[in-house]
C-alpha cells in the first residue's frame, strides 16, 4: 500500500458540494483501483471458503483443501446442519431477541430523548441524560456476574432478558443520537400542532416519531446487527441451552460438528447470511448511521 498517498486527489476539478470527486473515466486512478480490488480478497476469500465448504460432501471437506470448488455440489450439509442444530428453533429465538431489541431500542430511547430535549432546563431531565450516558463507560463484563444472578432471580435468564440487556447497553448511545437529532427539529412545528389542541402523546406519535424515521432506521439496523451477532450476552445470561441464539449454537455444536466440516460451514453460513442480507438492503443507513454516531 505504499502508493496509497498518490491516491489523494491533488487537483480536484471544481465541482458542486458533495460531488467533490468527479467520475470522469480519464481521471480514474487505476493503480489505486487495482490495489483496492486485490484488498477485497481479504474479505471475499473467507466468505468464499465458507460458501464452498458448505456445499461440499463430507468426504471432500476433510481433504484439507479449503479453496477447492465443491465437486460434487451437494445441499446435504445444509439439511444435516438444519436438523442437528435445530436451526428453526435457534432462528426463531434469534429473531425474537432481535425484534425486541430493535423495537425496544428505538422506542425507549426515542421517548427518553424527547422528554430530555423538551425539558432540558429542568434539572431532573438534564441529570437523567448524564446518568444514562454513564452506561457508555460500563462494559458488560464488569457487571456481568451480578447480572447473571439477578436475571436468574427474576426469571429473566432467557432470550427476553438478553433482549432487555441489549436495549440497556445501547441506551446511552441511542439516546445521544436521538437527542442530537431532536434538537435540529424546529419547535414551531410542534407548537402549531399543540395550538390545534394536540397533547404531548399525540405530538410525539403523530409528529416527532415520524420525523425521527431516518434516525430510527439507523438505530434499528445497528440494534439488529448487534443483537443478531452477539455471543457474549446470550451465552452467559440464557441458562437453558434449548433457548440459545444462533451464534451460541455454533459454539455448543462444535464437538458434534467434529470432522464434518461441511456441516459446520453450512451452519456458519446460515448463521451469517441473515445479517449480510439485511446489510445489503439497508447499506445507506448503515454507512451514514455509523459516521453520525461516531462524530457525536
Amino acid at each position, binding site marked *: 500500500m505504499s502508493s496509497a498517498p498518490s491516491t489523494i486527489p491533488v487537483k480536484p476539478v471544481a465541482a458542486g458540494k458533495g460531488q467533490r470527486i468527479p467520475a470522469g473515466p480519464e481521471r480514474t486512478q487505476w493503480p489505486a483501483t487495482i490495489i483496492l480490488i486485490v484488498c477485497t480478497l481479504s474479505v471475499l476469500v473467507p466468505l468464499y471458503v465458507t460458501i464452498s465448504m458448505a456445499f461440499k460432501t463430507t468426504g471432500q471437506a476433510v481433504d*484439507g483443501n479449503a479453496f477447492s470448488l465443491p465437486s460434487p455440489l451437494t445441499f446435504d450439509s445444509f439439511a444435516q446442519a438444519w436438523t442437528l442444530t435445530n436451526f428453526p428453533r435457534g432462528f426463531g429465538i434469534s429473531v425474537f431477541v432481535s425484534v425486541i431489541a430493535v423495537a425496544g431500542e428505538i422506542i425507549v*430511547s426515542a421517548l427518553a430523548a424527547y422528554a430530555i430535549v*423538551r425539558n432540558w432546563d429542568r434539572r431532573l431531565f438534564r441529570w437523567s441524560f448524564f446518568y444514562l450516558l454513564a452506561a457508555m463507560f460500563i462494559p458488560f463484563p464488569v457487571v*456481568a456476574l451480578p447480572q447473571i444472578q439477578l436475571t436468574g432471580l427474576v426469571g429473566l435468564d432467557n432470550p427476553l432478558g438478553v433482549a432487555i440487556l441489549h436495549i440497556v447497553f445501547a441506551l446511552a448511545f441511542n439516546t445521544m443520537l436521538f437527542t442530537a437529532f431532536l*434538537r435540529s427539529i424546529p419547535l414551531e412545528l410542534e407548537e402549531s400542532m399543540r395550538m390545534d389542541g394536540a*397533547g*404531548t402523546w399525540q405530538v410525539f406519535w403523530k409528529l416527532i416519531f415520524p420525523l425521527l424515521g431516518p434516525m430510527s432506521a439507523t438505530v434499528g439496523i445497528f440494534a439488529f446487527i448487534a443483537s443478531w451477532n452477539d455471543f457474549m450476552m446470550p451465552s*452467559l445470561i440464557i441458562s437453558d441451552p434449548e433457548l440459545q441464539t444462533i*451464534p451460541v449454537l455454533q459454539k455448543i455444536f462444535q464437538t458434534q460438528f467434529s470432522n464434518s466440516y461441511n456441516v459446520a460451514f453450512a451452519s456458519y453460513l446460515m448463521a451469517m447470511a441473515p445479517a449480510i442480507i439485511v446489510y445489503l438492503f439497508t447499506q445507506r443507513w448503515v454507512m451514514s448511521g455509523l459516521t453520525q454516531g461516531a462524530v457525536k
Partner: protein
Amino acid sequence: MSSMTRPSIRAEVTPPPATAAARAGRSRVDPLYYVFLLPSLVIFTLAVTLPAVLGFIYSFTNSVGFGDFDFIGVRNFIAVFRDEGVLGAYGFTLTFSLVTVIVVNAAAFLLALGLTSRVRFRAALRTVFVIPMVISGIVIAFVFQYLFSNSLPLFGQSTGIEPLATSLLANPNLAWLAIVFVTAWQSIPSAMLIYIAGLLTVPPEVYEASSIDGASPWQNLRHITLPLIAGYAVINTVLGFKNYLNAYDIIIGLTDGGPGVATRSVAMSIFRGFEGGDYAYQMANAVIFFLISIVIALIQLRFTRGKGGIAA
C-alpha cells in the same frame, strides 16, 4: 442523511433554545414527559446500576455466588494483584488492544484514502469492505480457526516457512497474532467509514490551494490530511480500545483462551467467577478492570480535547 447535524459533545451540553416547557413557565411540566423518561431510567437502574453496586459490595466479601458470606476487606484486591493468571490476562488484553488499535487504524486509514480518491467501482468496493462489520464475531472466528489450523499449515509446509508449518493457534507465542488479525478483520470497516467521513470534510479547495503552491501528494498527506483528520483518529482509538478491552467472542472461537492460558482475556477471567467459586474474587477483578477502562478512556478524552473538540 449526510446533511444531518454532527454536533460535538460540547453541543450536547449546551442548553438548547427555550423549550416549550420553558415558554409555558417553569411550573408546568406535562407529567407525560416523566412517563416517557421512566422506562429508560428503570431498566438502566435495574440492569446496570444495581448490579454494579452489588458487584462492588461483593468484591469486599468472600461470597462464592450463593449462601452466606463475610466481609473480608480488600483481601480480594490484594490477591488479584498477586494472581499470575489474572495479571497474564491483563498483559495479554492490553498488548492485544494496543496492537489491534494500531493495525486497525493504519489499515482503515489507507482504505479510506483509497476509497475517497478517484477509483472506479467505489460504491461496490465500499460495500464489500463493510461486510465484515455485519458478521458475527464468533462465527467468523470459527471460519478462521479452520483456515489457521488446516489451510495455513499446508501453505507453510509447501513453502517451507517454518513458523507457519504448524497451527498458529497452537503456538503460545503467536496465537495472539491470529486474534489480532481476526479482530482487525472485523473492526476495520467501522474505522474506515469514520475515516471516510473525516476525509470528506476536508474542503477540496485546500488541496487545490496547496497544489498551486507546488505541494507534492506526500506533503499534502503529511501537512493537510493528517492534521485535519487527527480528531477522527482519536474517535477510532477510543471506540477501538473500548471494544478490544472487552474482547471475548472472537477469542472463544479461535483459541478459547489457549494454548494453556496464553490468550485468556480479562473478560474471560472475570466470567470464570462462576466456575471456580471465586465469585467475589472475580468481582474485585471486575472493579479493577472497570477502573482501568475508565482511566484509559479519560486519558484518550483528555487527548481529544486538544484535537479540535470532536469527542467520542
